[in-house]
């Protein structure tokens, strides 16, 4: 659209980073449980929500990666 990078690519980059960070934090909590866990912490929301962000992020990142003209 404008030049070679679209907004969808930026969204892909940010969500991929967030996916990695949040999944990582969720996995860390699995091994080092927090002192005051949130309600429903047994569902390990950080892991599956982080993985969800990672999938969406990678989808946008790959699909809208700037192609060489």
């Amino acid at each position, binding site marked *: 659209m*404008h030049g070679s990078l679209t907004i969808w690519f930026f*969204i892909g980059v*940010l969500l991929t980073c967030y996916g990695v960070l*949040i999944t*990582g934090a969720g996995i860390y909590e699995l091994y080092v449980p927090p002192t005051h866990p*949130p309600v429903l912490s047994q569902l390990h*929301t950080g892991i599956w*929500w982080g993985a969800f962000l990672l999938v969406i992020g990678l989808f946008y990142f790959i699909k809208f990666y700037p192609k060489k003209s």
Partner: protein
Amino acid sequence: MQAASGKLLSLSTIDLFVIGLYFVMVLGIGLYLKRFTKTGEDFFLAGRDMSAWIAGLSFVAANLGSLELMGWAGSAYQYGILAAHWYWIGAIPAMLFLAIVMMPFYYISKTHSVPGYLKLRFGEPSRMLSAVSFGFMTVLMSGINMYSMALVMRIILGWDISFSIWVSSLTVMAYVFLGGLLSAIFNEVLQFFLIWLGAIVISILGLVEAGGWSGMVQKIHERWPQQDYTHMWLGLGSFSDNPMGIHWTGIVLGLGFVISFGYWTTDFLVVQRVLAAKDLRAAQMAPIIGSAFKMAVPFIVILPGLLALAVLPDHLVGEAQAVNGLHSYNEVLPLMLARYCGPGLLGLGITALIAGFMSGMAGNVSAFATVWTYDIYRATMNKNATDAHYVSVGRWCTVLGVLVSIGTAYLVMQFASIMDYVQALFSFFIAPLFGTVIFGMLWKRATPAGGFWGLLCGTVSSIAMWAWVKLDPSAIRYIALSPHAKDMAENMYRALWSWIICSAVTVVVSLLTTPKPNSELAGLVYGETDIPSSSALPLVQRPLFWVCVVGVVFTILNIIFW
């Protein structure tokens, strides 16, 4: 629930990293887009090159400020599902009307702004009245939102108010200064994603904890047997049968017709996003796409408020009573965030709130820069400058707008009572403006004098009604038609009356004055505008088809939650 330091939440390093990454990204987008904003059309209208999806998401995101998120979640806790009216009947019909009826005139007239349309249709006085009131209100609202956001950040995170104000507003200033509306729109789309992905987790986990929708309703009925929090229309037959103290006529005519149509079809903050669309079809599809997402917003805003009624152990209270460890209604979203989110997710949730604030502020600032540059500066001070000069003025208006907003934020800090009046002040201009614009678009006989005097009388009468009730609270029985009506109902009815007065004056003065010749109305008025037909397009590409789809879903949702 409350951290030892008195703040609601404590952020971990990973949360701070998530928030920091967001700031880096929005600034990076601004820097990247600077190279594409060279002309006035680029800076003020994003080159009129946006797809329907980008314009549509930006259209909704500009309205989704963080205060909107937290405020309406709090209202859902206070008033129950009635708050969803502001997202459904208070938005969807107006957005669809904008798409089908009004957008062709805005787009075909090639105006830069809503005041710009008034100039073409009614002349300079109407434009100036609307531009000055819009500029004033936009900056004021921006400052007040900024202060409120900083206050929230202090309450929930313990951040210093000045730190929150300066960091977030200078970031917005930087990316709008660099890339203009293009940068604002790109960031709004990004912010839209973050708001959804950060907030929907609360609804999902809340429903899991409450035992689904039926479990939540059952818990609310058990805990709050004296009020009906779960029906949208059932309690609206009488002012005293619902927690909001409003009658269905106020919701349908005041909110659903005047306030909603006024805001969604004439407030330049949102209309500017649609004017940036690449063609008329995209400009019509953008509000339709926006309406579909707007219809879903209650699932991230209203639902957490309802879930809080079902699951939060403490009872929340009004702002004035929130002392000695009690929490106010407006803290419901952060409380739910703290309830369910661990490290990382908490950072994402806070980023969603900050993103909401920044999208709203960027909307205000970019709209202010356009109206100031084209409708005030160019019209009154420098008519014949180069395009590059106007771009430069627009950039510096961005700086000016942000600095004045910051000044307003500090002013509000000293005189907090200003905040009580702002919603009323804002509504003074919205309802009559809708009357003026809609008569301008649909009635050829409306004259420049009719448009101007209608707008002026509608605005003045709205202010007079507000002052009357302030001086004599019993006057509410005349304005809102019942002594049992509450503030919200007064706002609805005052808007309705001011629209009626604006319309009546416009009609009477127009009939007494000379209309413009038809040749001057081409592209501005129904009957004198050649609107391209979409009948040659396949059904699924026609805006009217999607209006029907959204309309059907809207009707079904209202029936389900009746």
